[in-house]
């Protein structure tokens, strides 16, 4: 088991190294050269020359890469052009918000998607099946920002039952020890703050959940269908075991494996969706910050966040792979 984990970790290293090379090249390919990524576009030629000297940008490229890697390993991604804060600080500030949103979206997607997919497979061909499949196909095809906008208009504006923006009602005095607002409220006993934060998560969470929900529904359905055809299910049924036991012990557990791995993959699409969702709902997380960075050409932020998101994605998938291997020993041998 340990060997498996170590082997997979080692496989990560070249991937991450390669990423860092890509990013380094990207920064140097930006119009105006890497000075832009530090100075923005307001600088005069002299200032830029000064910077090139002081940063050693006239050194051979592999020395520059070495310096770049050195900084990366110290988690120094430079300073945001827009806010003047270190990129890492901005990342840590905003990570809890997006994480909370992503977890909410995943929860919705799984709590609704898995049972839906199961019943769709179970009652194959009936109404619930066709509507589940149709719904999931449509879900992938609706632009996320449009969906968010519609939700805002219907629920926040016309019905007025849910808030339209932010993570918390402005002016609500709440202590935030961890940065995860709902958790904070529960930890500090400020239940109205926790409830307020929860309400603010509903609409963005639903919006962000649309694509994972669609995918999980279909994957569960497909996976359950496949398992239903397997011998061991028929054996269990013929043994006269109760439906519920068959369902729980055999079908679901075996069907879940591919779904669990899919959840790991979805992390990537969650980040992408978060960029759009957070800007629609003014939800101050990593996504809306990346959006602002594209508007203001804040290259250090773009570079740093992309690198960090890729690292998280890779780590999450590694975790998923490891947990998958706990269920299915065959994987370890591959």
């Amino acid at each position, binding site marked *: 088991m340990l060997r498996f984990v170590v082997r997979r970790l080692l496989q990560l290293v070249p991937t991450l190294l390669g990423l860092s090379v890509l990013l380094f090249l990207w920064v140097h390919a930006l119009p105006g050269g890497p000075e832009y990524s530090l100075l923005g*576009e307001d600088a005069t030629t002299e200032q830029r020359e000064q910077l090139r000297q002081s940063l050693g940008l006239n050194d051979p490229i592999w020395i520059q890469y070495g310096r770049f890697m050195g900084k990366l390993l110290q988690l120094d991604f430079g300073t945001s052009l827009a806010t003047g804060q270190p990129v890492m600080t901005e990342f840590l500030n905003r990570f809890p918000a997006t994480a909370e949103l992503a977890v909410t979206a995943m929860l919705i997607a799984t709590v609704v998607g898995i049972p839906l997919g199961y019943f769709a497979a179970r009652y194959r061909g009936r109404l619930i099946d066709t509507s589940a499949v149709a719904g999931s196909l449509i879900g992938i095809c609706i632009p996320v920002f449009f969906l968010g906008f519609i939700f805002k208009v219907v629920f926040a504006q016309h019905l007025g039952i849910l808030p339209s923006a932010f993570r*918390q009602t*402005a002016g609500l005095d709440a202590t935030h020890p961890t940065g995860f607002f709902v958790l904070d409220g529960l930890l500090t006993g400020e239940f109205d703050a926790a409830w307020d934060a929860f309400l603010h998560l509903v609409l963005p969470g639903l919006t962000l959940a649309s694509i994972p929900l669609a995918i999980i529904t279909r994957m569960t359905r497909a996976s359950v269908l496949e398992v239903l055809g397997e011998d061991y299910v028929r054996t269990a049924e013929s043994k006269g075991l109760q439906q519920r036991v068959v369902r729980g012990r055999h079908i679901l557990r075996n069907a879940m494996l591919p779904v669990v791995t899919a959840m790991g993959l979805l992390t990537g699409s969650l980040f992408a969706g978060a960029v759009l969702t957070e800007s629609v709902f003014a939800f*101050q997380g990593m996504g809306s910050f990346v959006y602002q960075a594209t508007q203001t050409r804040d290259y250090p932020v773009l570079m740093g966040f992309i690198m960090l998101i890729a690292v998280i994605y890779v780590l999450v998938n590694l975790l998923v792979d490891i947990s998958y291997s706990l269920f299915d020993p065959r994987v370890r041998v591959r």
Partner: protein
Amino acid sequence: MRTKRSHAMRGLAVLAAAGVLATACASERDSSSGEELNETKPFVFAAPGDARSLDPFYATDGETFRVTRQIYNTLLKHESGGSEIVGDLASSWEQNDEGTVWTFDLEQDVTFHDGEKFNAEAVCANYDHWFNLKGDFQDSNVSYYWQKIFGGFAENENDDLPPANYKSCTAEEEFKAVIEVDKYSANLPGGFSMAAFGIMSPKVLAAQADSEVTGEPGAFEFPAYSQDPAAVAGTGPYRAVGWDKASQEIKLERFDEFWGEAAGIKTIIIKTISDENARKQALEAGDIHGYDLVAPADVAPLQEAGFQVPERGVFNVLYLAYQQEGNEALEDLAVRQALSHAVDRQRIVDTILPEGSEVATQFMPDTLTGWSPDVTEYEYDPEKAKDMLADAGVADLEIDFCYPTEVTRPYMPAPRDIFDIIKADLEAAGVTINEEALPWGDYIPKTDSGGCSLYLLGWTGDFNEAYNFLGTWFGHYDSGWGFRNDDIFDGLDAVANEPDPAKRETMYQELNVEIMDFLPGLPISHSPPSIAFSADVNPPTVSPLTQEDFSEATWK
């Protein structure tokens, strides 16, 4: 055996019940009286962008000033809702005949937020401190307004800096400050009202004497204390008590020892929502109680829904610039005239700009002294435009045209729409347009340095003096306009140094006629930028200079 799902169901039900109870309790609170609400309910205002500093001296952007105007006072200010100069920290003032000695009689019972007493020495501490700035502080990105109004520093370290006009500040009596300048400038007395010159507590100035600007040239970071609410202190009706950069929220609290009328609402929160639509929806959903720069299309629907959208006076101009160095054709006056006839400005005013907008005949609104009714007018005539272009030998003119994206300006609420109309108009006159869209941060440097032949830009006045408009652009060679016209330069130089306001008025009128004959660009419109408030608040008096004083607001 209970399955996991029914456990979850019960948990959810409990949570829902708790929530209903919580919201039920919350809604009871709102039915209290206005006075109680002033103490308990914070007023949330959404700004389109973040403030950059809590020390206004370093900044140039309206969002910083929106915050710092609540925290600091200046020697002079504009009357609430108008453009007349009145006293702020100075109860009265006078100038000598040459306009070189300015005497201020100061308010006497003023305390800073940190307990220091305000007096003439405090005033001079501020002005002298600015005059004596050295090193990176002399960069125009860090001390823009000082350089614009008072010129250079005690020791200019760079030949590009203008000579210093500021001479000295003397505390003649405990509450009488005298500021001397070398020559009269039309920037005074208006300059004394600029938000950048908010008076800071001398204790803070002393404590921060060694503060430094960090970062690289072109990307300077203001000194650390300017980001810390606890480190600054002004004399204003509010003090800054919190700046949460992650949530982009600045929290202001009423200062109880304010020397003037105490602020109505105890807590003000200024939040950043960069998306225009999101601002509107936040107001409609009750998440905020006011926001600035309402899209013209939203004004009527908001009013119908019960929100307040008071109309501000007009104090800006939007223009189409003709940068004469980039494209040879623009050097020909006939070509500039032709292009000006091609644009249907009335359509822009009627269909894109808010109610109360009007077509601009010159580079300043008629609310300013010095506006001239006699300027040459360029009526919309596409056929004439085509003919004139053909006569000038450029029937197939090809020209680049820049506009900014992802931004609304008080004088330009929908840049792309305005651009699209002008582009279509010019194309109808036979011109080929190469369009270039730039985000605001890139747009200013590029247009400033002459990188665009045609571009849209504008200006909101800082104070009630025509020089603030005309002098900003046409006082001397400017790479954004790319021309040298000594008649205009000399004319503006003369008016800048003319202390007699009556004489200045005539000079401005003549200059406006001259400028509109030379046609360095086409003034398009003046428009009132809209601000919206929720129905349950008594809003502050709105200002044509977009300088609202939030201390005037109260809950109903």
